[in-house]
C-alpha cells in the first residue's frame, strides 16, 4: 500500500499558469499561518507568506509577508515586496523593485533597489549546436569513369 499517489512525475505534469494567463489571474502561491517551508522557492507569479520560511524566496511578481509571517533568508521580488506590521523578515539580501515596510515589522538585511532585477535563477535552455555536415566533394574516380 502506498502512502501517496503524488509521484514526482505527476507533479512535473502540472502546468504552471502563465502571468495573466487563460484564467485571467496571475499565478499566486499562498503559505498559510500553519505552513512551513525549509529550502528554496521560485514562483512565477505572486507569493503570500503568513507562515514561516527558512530559506530563499524568489518571485517574478509580488511577495507579501503578512500576518505573523516569518521569513529567514534572501528575498528577491521582481516587482514589489510588502512586509506587514506583525511580520518579520530577517534576510541576507533583499532585491526588489518596490518595497513597503509597515510600522511594527521586523526587518533587517541588505536592500538593493533601483537596478532592474534580472532573472538570475532562470535556467538557461541548452540548445545543442546543430552539427553541420559538409558533404565531401566526391572525387571523380578513375575507375568509375573508365569506359
Amino acid at each position, binding site marked *: 500500500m502506498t502512502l501517496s499517489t503524488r509521484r514526482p512525475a505527476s507533479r512535473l505534469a502540472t502546468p504552471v499558469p502563465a502571468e495573466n494567463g487563460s484564467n485571467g489571474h496571475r499565478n499566486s502561491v499562498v503559505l498559510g499561518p500553519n505552513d512551513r517551508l525549509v529550502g528554496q522557492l521560485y514562483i512565477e507569479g505572486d507569493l503570500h507568506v503568513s507562515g514561516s520560511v527558512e530559506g530563499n524566496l524568489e518571485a517574478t511578481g509580488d511577495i507579501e509577508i503578512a500576518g505573523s509571517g516569518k521569513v529567514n533568508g534572501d528575498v528577491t521580488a521582481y516587482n514589489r515586496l510588502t512586509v506587514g506590521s506583525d511580520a518579520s523578515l530577517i534576510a541576507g539580501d533583499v532585491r526588489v523593485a518596490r*518595497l513597503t515596510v509597515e510600522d*511594527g515589522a*521586523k526587518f*533587517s538585511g541588505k536592500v538593493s*533597489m533601483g537596478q532592474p532585477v534580472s532573472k538570475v535563477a532562470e535556467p538557461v535552455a541548452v540548445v545543442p549546436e546543430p552539427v553541420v555536415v559538409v558533404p565531401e566533394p566526391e572525387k571523380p574516380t578513375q575507375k568509375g569513369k573508365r569506359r
Partner: protein
Amino acid sequence: MDVQEAVAEGTASAENGEVKRDGRKQFSMGPGDILEGKLIYDGSVHADGKVEGEVRVTGNIDVASGASVKALLEGANVTLKGQVEGMVTARDKLTLGKNARLSGDIQVRRLQIDDGATLNGHVRMGDFEHQASGQ
C-alpha cells in the same frame, strides 16, 4: 499692502534658524539654505536645501522632499522625504516617505517604508523579540 507683504516675509525668514515650538528647540532650514559641517543640536532639525556633513540631534530629524543630504544623520525619529546619501540612525523610528531616496546603511528601532520610496543599503533593527542579547 506692501507693508503686510513685508511683514509676512519677515515672519517667514524668522522661521529659518532657531525657533521655539512647544517649548522645544527646532533648527529649521529653507529650500535655499546650505549647511556644511557638523551639527550637534539639542532639539529637532527640519532639513531642506543642501546638507553635507553630520547631523546629530536629541530630537527628531525631518528631511524635506526637495532637500539633498549627504550626511550622517542621527535622531530619535527620522523622517525622510527627500534624497539622502549617508548612514542614518533612528533611536526610535525611521520613516521613508513615498518620494524618499536613501542610499546608506541604517540602524533603527522601528522602520516604516512607504510604497515608492527607494532604499539601497544595510538595515539593522534593534529590539528583536527573539534576540536574547540586545545590541
